[in-house]
């Protein structure tokens, strides 16, 4: 008997079938990956197994756990299976843990509810579990509230709560998507340990994670199972075209050409820029410290960093959306004033931006055509309304949206379509610099590839300079000429794409590269070379901010701030760049 046997599972909301006729089985001891894009039904499937679908979901088929029917089972039956036989790790531990209850109490109540332990024994078991998932100082975390833990620690606590009643089947639904890259690697390592004695069903959009951690995989497309088999076989020769497309769209660090540096006029220069914010309680948060960067016409510069690195603050300051604390911003050699309001109107057309959240960056009350038209209305006052309409239509056509989209409202667009509109709005004035703030982070792999290609095309036509902010080094590998890596507001490394990806000079850059899971079961990837998490930006470590996490750190790193200098043609801020071999 299989541990989990799914037969003909169909989930419907009204007329909308989100999972269609899904059948598969999982044997005890296996680790199986489920991959699919948004809307593939992978999370719905997980909720169905746990019996957590909302009341308006209609299900058909059968889901057997250890031979017990789970689908449409009574709450009592389900509660007998949950925690002790099956458990679920959710995506975002900030949302999935109760902010009002201490971590220890949240775990304890699971044991007491299922009569597994009580009193001191329960406390001891909880502490033991917190220790097992690698939480430092378990006694302290036992008494802590979720908001007092860092993102990675919260996810460890979440995993501990799933494992506390020793379930046979652990389902992890995008367990690392809400985390930073280096923390993701640590959590994946923990899951790797767990799967030695627990059956794991790992749901993700990231083929790299599957490749590294699952023996077998299922590929879902729009609610259907399109392919299943061993991970090695599927990656070697995908049978279904959707699988092939997914593998093709997965960004890779180890394959494909990188762009070589371009020599053009410098259009945007940031000189010794610092940005700080005043907190409510009177503290000030130093988001960017003394950072310099110049961007040439026709060049794409990727700005890479984890949360709190200051990458977004840096470009927002350049655009004049937040005030500079010190430093200068030059555009084509001319100094730009402080905030965007005070900049000359003619200059504003040359600096445009595209945001991460495609829906949020479009006014919900305006139609697509008016959204794209607005910049023309401001800057091309001489144009007649017909001419403007013509330009809008041409622009929409260029980003791949036909005439039928012009009258739509943003809520009638998919994420990818909305992002195309945002790009059309940014490009219609033919700007010299385009800033993309995580512009593809919210999109599925295939859509992401299209949008990146669109941006690449836009650059080919003219001398457009692109500044691309991202947390993912793999995504920008194919499209950037140079890469700036930031950590806690400072420059860590600034290098040509070719040299950065082949031989990183800074231990942090190397760790970021190592942490990216490689979508290839044959290649080693996603290894942990970095412990701990990014410290609070409010109290940065002394000397080199990276030293507490750096295995090469010496006394000088703790005492002195490393200044950016040229090492092997790259700009690196590390005292020991020459001595260490990465």
């Amino acid at each position, binding site marked *: 008997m299989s541990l989990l046997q799914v037969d003909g599972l169909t989930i419907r909301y009204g007329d909308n079938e989100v999972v269609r006729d899904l059948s598969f089985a999982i044997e005890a001891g296996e680790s199986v990956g489920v991959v699919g894009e948004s809307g593939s039904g992978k999370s719905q499937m997980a909720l169905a197994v*746990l019996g*957590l679908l909302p009341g308006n979901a209609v299900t058909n088929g059968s889901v057997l756990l250890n031979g017990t029917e789970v689908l449409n089972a009574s*709450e009592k039956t*389900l*509660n*007998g*299976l*949950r*925690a*002790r036989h099956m*458990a*679920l790790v*959710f995506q*975002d531990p900030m*949302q*999935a*843990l*109760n*902010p*009002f*209850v201490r971590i220890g*109490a949240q775990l304890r*109540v*699971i044991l007491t*509810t*299922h009569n597994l332990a009580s009193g001191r024994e329960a406390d001891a078991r909880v502490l033991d579990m917190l220790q097992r998932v690698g939480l430092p100082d378990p006694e302290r975390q036992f008494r802590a*509230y979720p*908001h007092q833990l860092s993102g990675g620690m919260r996810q460890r606590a*979440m995993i501990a*709560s799933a494992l506390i*009643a020793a379930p046979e089947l652990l389902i992890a639904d995008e367990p690392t998507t809400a985390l930073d890259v280096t923390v993701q690697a640590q959590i994946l390592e923990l899951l790797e340990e767990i799967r030695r004695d627990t059956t794991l069903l790992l749901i993700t959009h990231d083929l790299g994670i599957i490749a590294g951690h699952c023996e077998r995989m299922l590929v879902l497309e729009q609610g259907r199972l399109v392919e299943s088999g061993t991970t090695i076989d599927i990656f070697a020769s995908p049978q279904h075209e959707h699988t092939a497309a997914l593998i093709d769209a997965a960004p890779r660090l180890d394959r494909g050409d990188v762009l070589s540096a371009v020599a053009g006029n410098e259009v945007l220069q940031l000189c010794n820029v610092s940005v700080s914010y005043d907190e*409510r*309680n009177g503290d000030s948060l130093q988001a960017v410290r003394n950072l310099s960067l110049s961007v040439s016409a026709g060049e794409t510069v990727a700005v890479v960093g984890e949360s709190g690195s200051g990458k977004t603050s840096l470009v927002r300051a350049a655009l004049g959306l937040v005030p500079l604390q010190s430093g200068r911003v030059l555009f084509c050699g001319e100094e730009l004033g402080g905030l965007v309001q005070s900049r000359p109107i003619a200059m504003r057309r040359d600096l445009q931006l595209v945001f991460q959240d495609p829906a949020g960056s479009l006014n919900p009350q305006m139609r697509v055509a008016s959204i794209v038209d607005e910049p023309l209305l401001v800057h091309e006052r001489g144009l007649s309304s017909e001419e403007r309409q013509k330009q809008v239509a041409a622009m929409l056509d260029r980003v791949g949206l036909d005439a039928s989209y012009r009258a739509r409202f943003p809520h009638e667009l998919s994420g990818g379509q909305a992002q195309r509109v945002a790009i059309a709005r940014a490009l219609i004035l033919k700007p010299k610099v385009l800033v993309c703030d995580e512009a593809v982070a919210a999109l599925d792999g295939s859509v992401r590839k299209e949008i990146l290609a669109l941006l690449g095309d836009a650059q080919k036509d003219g001398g457009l300079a692109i500044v691309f902010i991202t947390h993912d080094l793999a995504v920008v590998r194919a499209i950037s000429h140079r890469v700036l890596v930031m950590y806690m507001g400072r420059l860590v490394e600034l290098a040509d794409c070719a040299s950065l990806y082949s031989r990183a000079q800074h231990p942090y850059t190397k760790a970021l590269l190592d942490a990216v899971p490689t979508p290839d079961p044959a290649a080693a990837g996603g290894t942990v070379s970095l412990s701990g998490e990014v410290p609070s930006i409010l109290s940065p470590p002394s000397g080199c901010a990276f030293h507490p996490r750096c295995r090469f750190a010496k006394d000088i790193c703790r005492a002195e701030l490393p200044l950016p200098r040229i090492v092997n043609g790259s700009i690196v801020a590390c005292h020991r760049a020459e001595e260490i071999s990465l």
Partner: protein
Amino acid sequence: MLRYTVLRVLGAIPTLLLVIVLAFLMVHAAPGGPFDDERVLPPEIEANIAKKYHLDEPLHRQFLRYLGGVVQGDLGPSYSYRDHTVSELIGGALPLSLHLGALAMLLSLIVGVTAGTAAALRKNTVLDRTVMALAMTGISIPVFVVAPVLVLVLAVYLQWLPAGWSGNAGGARYLLPVVSLALPQIAYIARLTRASMIDVLASDFIRTARAQGLGTIAIVRYHALKPAMLPVLSYMGPAVAAILTGSVVVEEIFGIPGLGQLFVRGALNRDYTLVLGIVIFYATLIILLNLLVDILYAVIDPRVRQR
């Protein structure tokens, strides 16, 4: 936590001061004094009265004098009850009103929270719809309509309960006034509880708790109740204000010699010092209560404490 509490307490002081200034100015900016309208008095008597009540001093002196009194619990003499000070009058009427108000508040909380939670757990069922329809009715009928209609039906027609206050004794006479005061608050609290309970039950951490195999009762007890009670807690300030307001009409309708009746009589007799004193007393009560609610809020929500 201590820092938070101290900050909150300090923050309440300017509000209190503002109340006193505003109330004082309103009364003193009024055209004509308390003794102006009825009779025309000889100038020397008028001067005497003005002197007695310090009306001949400049406004800021009067205010400082008044403020000094307020700090010591002295709200000045009453204009209409000549033998009593305002503080004495308030002190005399307060226990009865406090009694009524506390009972109404307790009733509102118990019935409101229970009904709201039940409706939320049985969302979109007959029970839920009934509770919500009743609550909507409760909100839409003002206290001064509920009270006389209840009297008309239960006391006058059916004669189950005593209609008035004086001449009756025992607990039964509390019933109608307390219920009249509580009904709209029960309705508000039930709606509030239902809405926030539904919100909380839809949150991700409740789904986690369900995934952990906790039953409904355990989920409500360990996970949902605390966060769901926060909006209700925030409503305590306005609820007390509403009950105080309600007590003004309820005491009038039932003839209860409490603070509310004293206030209305004072207002109709244009007894400035009395009305001023009661307003300041009410305001202080509500501000202190809001303060208590703020502190309780921080006790329940660990995230607030750090701010």
